[in-house]
């Protein structure tokens, strides 16, 4: 396609068009996944609780997310009289941008990534921290007690678990020797087990628990614990601003699933001992493996939500600070020792 465009356009414009096309494809497919993640969640949890879930709108209720989106688009946008207007207007947008722009560094399959930067993992952390701004600002600007307490709780929860999440991935960086997400996947393909989840099982455990806390999902959904705080930081939001929070939250889940797929489960590759046994699997496109891993992880999110009760806030803080941080530090030291050991033998 670049050759076709290059025939009558300068190279800079061609590059720009290709980047824009890639972005459009990724955002469109990403948002479609977000919409159907909500449908799928309601179906899965429905069946786990011996209900049917959505089934009225369209065949098997498949048009439910579209109907929800259209409804939220046309709903009244209520701005509370005492709210800090500019911050109240902007914070859902900040939250949404921070969540979705993480998609720009995710490699979906070999050599398909919007921005192949050498600090991809660091960029993902930076964006997940920026999301906390949207939460804090919305909690503060709503001028409502529920929103204020929800924002406060969420901010300290997100920053606490960000440390353990950041530390849990240092083991992966040690093994891959890179922060570039594509390099991490390739390093895993070279590794005997094909997935870093096996040698990095402590890191994987810490990462998974932190991912649940970072996305405010059950069992760590204290910021929006409906029995105490109504809806937490977005209590006062309605209409499309509420939808932006919702989109941001589900995008966050998809991003977390993608990070775990890339850093621990081998991304778009499958372990080589599997392809040695079943060579025909080499012909399955990489994107399918990537999506399969992401879907499994999303299913795990729903499964945990249907199974576990909510933690108390003091338990949440104790798990983060007293269990996960020492565990992830231990993981780093063990990984470094093992690496030194094996090099000493070689």
């Amino acid at each position, binding site marked *: 396609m670049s050759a076709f465009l290059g025939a009558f356009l300068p190279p800079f414009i061609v590059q720009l068009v290709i980047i824009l096309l890639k972005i459009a494809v990724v955002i469109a497919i990403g948002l479609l996944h977000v919409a159907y993640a909500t449908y799928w969640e309601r179906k899965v949890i429905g069946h786990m609780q011996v209900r049917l879930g959505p089934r009225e709108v369209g065949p098997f209720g498949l048009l439910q997310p579209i109907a929800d989106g259209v409804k939220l688009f046309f709903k*009244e946008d209520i701005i509370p009289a005492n709210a800090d207007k500019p911050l109240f207007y902007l914070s859902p947008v900040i939250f949404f941008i921070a969540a979705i722009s993480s998609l720009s560094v995710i490699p979906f399959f070999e050599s398909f990534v919007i*921005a192949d930067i050498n600090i991809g993992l660091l960029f993902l952390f930076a964006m997940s921290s920026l999301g906390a701004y949207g939460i804090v600002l919305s909690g503060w600007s709503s001028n409502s007690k529920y929103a204020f307490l929800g924002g406060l709780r969420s901010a300290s929860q997100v920053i*606490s678990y960000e440390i353990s999440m950041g530390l849990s991935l240092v083991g992966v960086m040690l093994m891959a020797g890179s922060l570039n997400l594509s390099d991490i996947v390739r390093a895993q393909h070279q590794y005997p087990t094909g997935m870093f989840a096996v040698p990095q099982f402590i890191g994987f455990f810490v990462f998974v628990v932190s991912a649940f806390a970072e996305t405010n999902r059950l069992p760590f959904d204290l910021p929006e614990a409906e029995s105490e705080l109504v809806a937490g930081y977005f209590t006062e939001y309605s209409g499309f601003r509420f939808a932006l929070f919702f989109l941001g939250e589900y995008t966050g889940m998809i991003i977390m699933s993608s990070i775990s797929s890339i850093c621990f489960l081998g991304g778009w590759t499958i372990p080589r001992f599997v392809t040695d046994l079943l060579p025909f699997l080499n012909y399955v496109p990489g994107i399918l493996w990537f999506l399969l891993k992401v879907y499994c992880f999303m299913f795990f999110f729903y499964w945990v939500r249907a199974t576990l009760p909510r933690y108390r806030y003091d338990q949440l803080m104790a798990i983060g600070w007293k269990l996960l*941080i020492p565990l992830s530090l231990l993981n780093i030291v063990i990984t470094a020792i093992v690496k030194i050991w094996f090099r000493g033998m070689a």
Partner: protein
Amino acid sequence: MPGTFTPSAYLPILIFLVVATAFGIGALLIGELFRLKRPYPEKLMPYESGNEPVGEPRIRFSVRFYIIAMLFVVFDVEAVFLYPWAVVFDRVGFFAFIEMIIFIIILLVGYVYAWKKEAFVWD
């Protein structure tokens, strides 16, 4: 050569941010044209489970949130220091290993101190 680095790999991210912002704000602005607008004073009250709001919403909150925020700064900086170390570990080798063990031990002292001071206890 220092001073001539052009972060061209980051250009797609910039474009992505612009597109995402346009999507968020654009959807809100377009929706503004179609949306119902029927505000009245009761609707614009802060939600307090149907009661009249009592007192100020921005109450004084526990000092523990500040302590957590300060500890976060310390540990997050530590994590960021560990990233470059992890990336060049293969090239620097045993020296880097010893150095980082010392760094982690120094941090552990502060961590144990915070634990003993009950900074992680929440009641």
